[in-house]
């Protein structure tokens, strides 16, 4: 059993509480991404799991063992840090074998496991080099190799790809996913990059201000965000929001547009925020009038930024377009893909 259970965990620095009673269950072998903006407490929570921060209240359980008071070295957790934290005075081989040497593993076993990890990560030819002789991507691989040789109960990753350039990040992302599919070790991965979280994780936990905003499968979060925060955080390009007032199913936006929502969506009257993903706005002959301000072709699709009575609207169309900045367009809305939120509470209606 290598499941992780976080129950009512709180973290305070003096009287200042930064994590306010978080509960997350992570089944054996699952890849969970903790996402959220800077300062939301995701790295703190990860460090509490690692034993690098005290737990002010609540419990963290790995398997059947509560680990609150267990020293980091006895938790059987491997962690990859954002800055890799390779031991600079040791070779790659020594770095990867360090944890096994600490556990008095026989030398032949260490050699075998280091060789296996090096083969998986393509590090065989770098084993005798020191970290300073490696590129950023190679260091990142060594950091992962150091974690996997231990065959730990849980992998913790603290934004491990954020220091790599864009191309290498995409490549390493795929390698990480493949690695997890191969090892099937319970993994907790902290990132502020929602694309990374969407592509890697079995389940995403969105955190905000020391709370869990929503936890669920990536596409569940994308399709049915439970709050304005999650709706804004998940998705790239981000969701469009329009403030307005609802009146018995009829919605009047601040921009002046008015239309009827499907019956079940607006049970009450009041101030609401309408969310529409860029791919759910379409170019039509008639519809909401807007003026194109920026056209960003990426090859397979084109992102259009337009202004609709002063408000910025993002539209994503597949393929290419002849639109130019300044062109007048009409936008159609796919009523089946609308997200309606209570403006005051931010909750989904």
């Amino acid at each position, binding site marked *: 059993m290598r499941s992780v259970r976080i129950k009512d965990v709180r973290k305070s620095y003096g009287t200042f509480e930064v994590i306010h009673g978080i509960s997350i269950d992570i089944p054996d072998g699952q890849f969970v991404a903790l996402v959220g903006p800077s300062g939301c407490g995701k790295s703190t929570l990860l460090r509490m799991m690692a*034993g690098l921060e005290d737990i002010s209240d609540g419990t963290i359980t790995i398997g059947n063992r509560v680990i609150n008071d267990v020293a980091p070295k006895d938790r059987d957790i*491997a962690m990859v840090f954002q800055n890799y934290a390779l031991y600079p005075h040791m070779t790659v081989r020594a770095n990867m074998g*360090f944890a096994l040497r600490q556990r008095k593993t026989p030398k032949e076993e260490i050699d075998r496991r280091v060789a296996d990890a090096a083969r998986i990560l393509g590090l065989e030819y770098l084993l005798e080099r020191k970290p300073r002789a490696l590129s950023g991507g190679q260091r990142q691989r060594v950091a992962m190799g150091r974690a996997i040789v231990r065959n730990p109960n849980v992998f913790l990753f603290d934004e491990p790809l954020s220091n790599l350039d864009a191309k290498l990040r995409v490549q390493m992302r795929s390698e990480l996913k493949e690695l997890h599919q191969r090892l099937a070790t319970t993994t907790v991965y902290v990132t502020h990059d929602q694309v990374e979280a969407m592509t890697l994780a079995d389940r995403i936990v969105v955190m905000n201000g020391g709370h869990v905003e929503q936890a669920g499968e990536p596409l569940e979060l994308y399709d049915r965000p439970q709050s304005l925060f999650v709706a804004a955080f998940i998705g790239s390009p981000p969701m469009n929001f329009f403030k307005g007032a609802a009146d018995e199913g009829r919605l009047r936006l601040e921009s002046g547009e008015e239309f009827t929502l499907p019956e079940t969506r607006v049970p009450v009257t009041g101030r609401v925020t309408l969310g529409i993903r860029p791919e759910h706005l379409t170019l039509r002959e008639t519809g909401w009038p807007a003026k194109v301000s920026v056209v960003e072709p990426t090859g397979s699709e084109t992102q259009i930024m337009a202004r609709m009575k002063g408000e910025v609207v993002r539209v994503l169309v597949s393929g290419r377009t002849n639109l130019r900045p300044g062109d007048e367009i009409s936008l159609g809305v796919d009523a089946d893909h609308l997200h309606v939120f209570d403006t005051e509470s931010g909750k989904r209606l």
Partner: protein
Amino acid sequence: MSDDTFGSIAHRASLRSGDRVRVVASIVAALLFLFPVFWMVLTSFKLQKDIFTSPPTFIFTPTLENYVSYLQRSTIPHQMLNTVVVAFASGIISIVAGTMAGYALARLRIRGAGFLGVLILMSRGVPPIALAVPMFLVGRAFGLIDSHIILILAYCTFLIPYVMWLMRGFFKALPKELEESAMLDGCNRFGAFFKIIVPISVPGLLSTLIFCVILAWEELLFAIVLTNRVASTVPVAIVNIAGDTVNGANWGALTAVGTMTVIPVVVFALLVQKWLIQGLADGATKG
């Protein structure tokens, strides 16, 4: 040729002339600092009559008389040995204690650590002469006067704060994830310190050790107050030569002893310089 190209060439030229100025300034500074040492070494090979020629001369018949006669007649070899023992012992003890204290101040969450650190640093602000007499009284009470131990302990009082503050800054500059990683890899705090932090701090530790040894090597006040014959050090010998009221100051002997005092420190610094490579911690983190 474009303006940009001209600008780029002009920029490179100004950098080169800047480099030249720095090199010339470094040479001038080095000559200024080294000239007294050079003159001391030169004088140590002169006879008394050549030392006071006016104008001073660079060309003379060199002699080893100052070295041979003084070494044969005086207690210098014994004092040299005392200096080696006291300087290295106090240096090493201070490095061990000061490094651990510096690490604790840099890394551990100790209530009042900042205040404690400042308090220890403030102890360096006390004039040594104000401490010499109390130290003498304490040393006498414990029967330690004129022993190596009292001198080593006295030197540790100012060397440990020195090491602590230097190493605290050094440790603060190291990424804390190194120890955290080691602690997840199976070390406790001490293991992480000794297996990871100490090895990568070798350049900092050695340069600090050199400064400690030099400070203890040249220390005079405590050596005069706390020692007499058995444990007295070379600086005391030099003062005795310079202040010889019976035979007058023997400048040849003085410079010979001065030269012998400098040589071990220079040799030590040369021996450890290969360890003083900058950037040993390079590669620990993101590239």
